[in-house]
């Protein structure tokens, strides 16, 4: 139908709507298809992400103990209570210390491993696999190995066996916050589990650096090694580094599994999520206060993520790709 009218160019007036109609129906068709493709996901997203978030904000202004239905409006009391709770505020400090340890160390280790593996001429795939494979292990399983075999506070633990060879006394790695050896346990566990994954990202980025850059640098007299690393490799990895740091920070926020399993009953070294779990699902079952905590945490994360994105220019590298 439209094909016949399309050829009729003599009469401008009726041609216009005729031309527009197929385009509009095409657009309507794609709009319908857009929603057909995306609505299963979007509806789920609304029900299981947006609604709980909204409900949580609502609940945080109410008294809600042992029940998920709010009973009494109490304004900001939940916020006051959880901010007065030294365990919760302490957990924010714990997170800060944890992030300050884990983000730079994982960044450095995964970049280091990537540089090593990248330069290998044979057995490259083998070594890449060795470093990557811990990614398959769960935090729970790793916590189990760390707690019961490596950093066991008794003689037969690997760490104590090894330091024993040098005549050092047994150390209670997890059972004592002073000195805080538990940080060593937690940081090494996470390094082992996640360094290989970020190594892959760095490896991919290293492969994308044009060889001509190094050739040009060597003509200009740059010594291979520190100089080329400092002035070529590192700047070329900027976009990847930014993404890695952001992902590491987000992953650090989500820390729960290994803390829960390594330090379950301890009163020290608890990250925010463990505290929230204890508040909302522990003995007190205070969903109101737990929700207030979740809101505070979300706001903090948003601020830090946006701030970090701003300074590091997250996404800028993506545009130029």
């Amino acid at each position, binding site marked *: 139908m439209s094909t016949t009218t399309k050829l009729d160019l003599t009469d401008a007036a009726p041609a216009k709507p005729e031309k527009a109609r197929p385009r509009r129906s095409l657009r309507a068709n794609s709009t319908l298809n857009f929603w057909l493709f995306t609505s299963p*996901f979007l509806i789920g997203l609304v029900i299981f992400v947006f609604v709980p978030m909204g409900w949580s904000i609502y609940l945080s202004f109410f008294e809600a103990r042992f029940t*998920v239905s709010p009973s009494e409006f109490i304004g900001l009391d939940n916020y006051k209570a959880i901010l007065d709770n030294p365990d919760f505020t302490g957990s924010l400090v714990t997170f800060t210390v944890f992030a300050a340890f884990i983000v730079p160390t994982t960044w450095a280790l995964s970049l280091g491993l990537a540089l*090593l593996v990248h330069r290998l001429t044979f057995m490259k795939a083998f070594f890449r696999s060795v470093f990557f494979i811990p990614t398959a292990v769960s935090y729970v399983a790793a916590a189990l190995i760390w707690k019961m075999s490596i950093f066991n506070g008794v003689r037969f633990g690997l760490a104590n066996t090894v330091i024993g060879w040098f005549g050092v006394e047994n150390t209670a790695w997890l059972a004592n916050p002073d000195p805080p050896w538990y940080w060593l346990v937690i940081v090494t566990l996470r390094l082992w589990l996640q360094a290989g994954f970020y190594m892959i990202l760095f490896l991919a980025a290293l492969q994308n650096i044009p060889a001509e850059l190094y050739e040009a640098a060597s003509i200009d007299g740059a010594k291979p090694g520190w100089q080329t690393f400092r002035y070529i490799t590192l700047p070329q990895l900027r976009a990847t580094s930014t993404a890695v740091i952001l992902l590491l920070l987000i992953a650090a926020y989500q820390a729960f599994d290994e803390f829960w399993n390594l330090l379950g009953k301890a009163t020290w070294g608890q990250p925010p999520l463990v505290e929230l779990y204890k508040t909302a699902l522990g003995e007190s079952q205070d969903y109101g206060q737990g929700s207030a905590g979740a809101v505070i945490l979300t706001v903090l994360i948003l601020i830090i993520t946006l701030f970090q994105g701003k300074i590091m220019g997250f996404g800028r590298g993506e545009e130029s790709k």
Partner: protein
Amino acid sequence: MTTTAPDVTKTPRKKRGGKVIGNTGLYIATGVAALLFLVPFYLIVRNALMTDPEITGEDWKWFPTDIQWGNITEPFNDETVDFGRALWNSWVVAVLHTSGILLICSLAGYGLARIPYRHANKVFYGVLVTLMIPTAVTFVPSFVLVSSLGWVDTYRGLIIPGLFSGFTCFLFRQYFLGFPKELEEAARVDGLSYWGAYWRVVVPNSLNFFAAMATITFISGWNSFLWPLVIGQDPSSWTIQVALSSYMTNQTVNYHLIFMATAISILPLLLVFLFLQRWLVQGIAQTGIKG
């Protein structure tokens, strides 16, 4: 290494010699790091195949004197934790989680990337917002919702809330943006609908990416702990990770059993990893990012 020949290469002899030494050093450094990375795996196997007195003995033993193959069945015979049931639960959850996520998120990612719609960007920002909120922070409100639906201790509760991953949708969108447009256009000209083009052209040509995403999703499903811990209040709905965790809080510590259970929980993923390694690495490199 036979660089003494009087060829006029740009590399002077000194430099080559340095390269050999550099290479040896490189391999030593990589090798040492690799050994350190393998120690935890070795410890699992060692402890799983030893007797408790040997594990806790005074003298450190790198190898069991007598390999206890009988330990393999022990987690399954343990009375305190239904290990077989937990394995089955994990299997069901991980498989359904993976297939559900791949279906729902790939469709949405395709729609966002390729189907023209005036407000597509606004919708996409709505998805991006959820990326900023770490999913783990939402577990309190999600639990509130799921428990009011009566889904605690059910497969539904374990699986459905996790299907709507903004991140996976985002990755699929990024991937489809880079998918060669010509292929689809040809299909559309041939009269296929969006739906037809998607299933007959786009998906069959994206199997590598789908495989990589499937592996990553399966691993995260199998390894997830916080949500199954929250939802699995009754031991019959425990997943393998919750079961493993419960061993740590048990009053009697049965070392070889715990490590055998750990080994069994890791083995399927290790196999998947070793076989799909190439795809996986490519997929991760392709997506650029994945947390």
